[in-house]
């Protein structure tokens, strides 16, 4: 009986000592989170310039926002961060009657910055009043602009 008690105490002591001596395992290092590369800058319409003409480098000649009825209206549009192929669209609305005057689109095939020009005119003259221009690139609305036709 006495020896059993001793054996029990001994075993309990062994278990206790073994438990205390157990080293804590090092915590695993937190996983390294790979940061995704920043997304490329989104294509965007960066400038809309109205003029009566443009040169070979697509720069405005006689920039203005007021035209005479029989003037040619030239709209120069700069687009940035374009990845081929992007679709640039422009719509011209006549504000007094909210009518579509002209809509055009062009495919941009050059990576990076593109300069584009749209022009429109009316042989018998555009009606006087305010006009609104809307641009979109790949279906996403871009800059807007406006001009006046005055007698």
């Amino acid at each position: 009986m006495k020896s059993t008690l001793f054996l029990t105490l001994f075993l309990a002591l062994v278990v206790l000592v073994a438990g205390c001596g157990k080293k804590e395992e090092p915590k695993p290092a937190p996983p390294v989170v790979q940061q995704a590369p920043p997304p490329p800058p989104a294509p965007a319409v960066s400038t809309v310039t109205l003029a009566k003409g443009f040169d070979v480098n697509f720069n405005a000649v006689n920039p203005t926002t007021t035209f005479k009825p029989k003037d040619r209206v030239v709209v120069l549009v700069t687009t940035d961060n374009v990845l081929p192929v992007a679709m640039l669209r422009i719509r011209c609305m006549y504000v007094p009657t909210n009518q579509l005057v002209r809509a055009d689109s062009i495919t941009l095939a050059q990576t990076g910055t593109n300069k584009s020009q749209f022009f429109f005119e009316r042989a018998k003259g555009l009606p006087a009043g305010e006009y609104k221009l809307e641009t979109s690139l790949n279906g996403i609305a871009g800059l807007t602009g406006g001009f006046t036709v005055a007698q």
Partner: protein
Amino acid sequence: MPPLPDNGGPIDFSDVTGGATTSGETRTYVVKKGDSLSKIAKEFYNDAKKWKKIFQANTDQIKNPDLIRPGQKLIIPD
């Protein structure tokens, strides 16, 4: 006298003409009746005197700069 929106009614804009070009493409132009190289140069470069530039880019199909035919597809250099 251009029409005025005096009555607020709809206006026929179907006769508005226009076009588009971009720096990133090879521009072409199909010759219409009554066109001349200087007229085309005026349209694209806003300078009729630059007709030679178009002529030089299209010498394979234009031998005489005074003779272009409707339907010819011309390269318009930048």
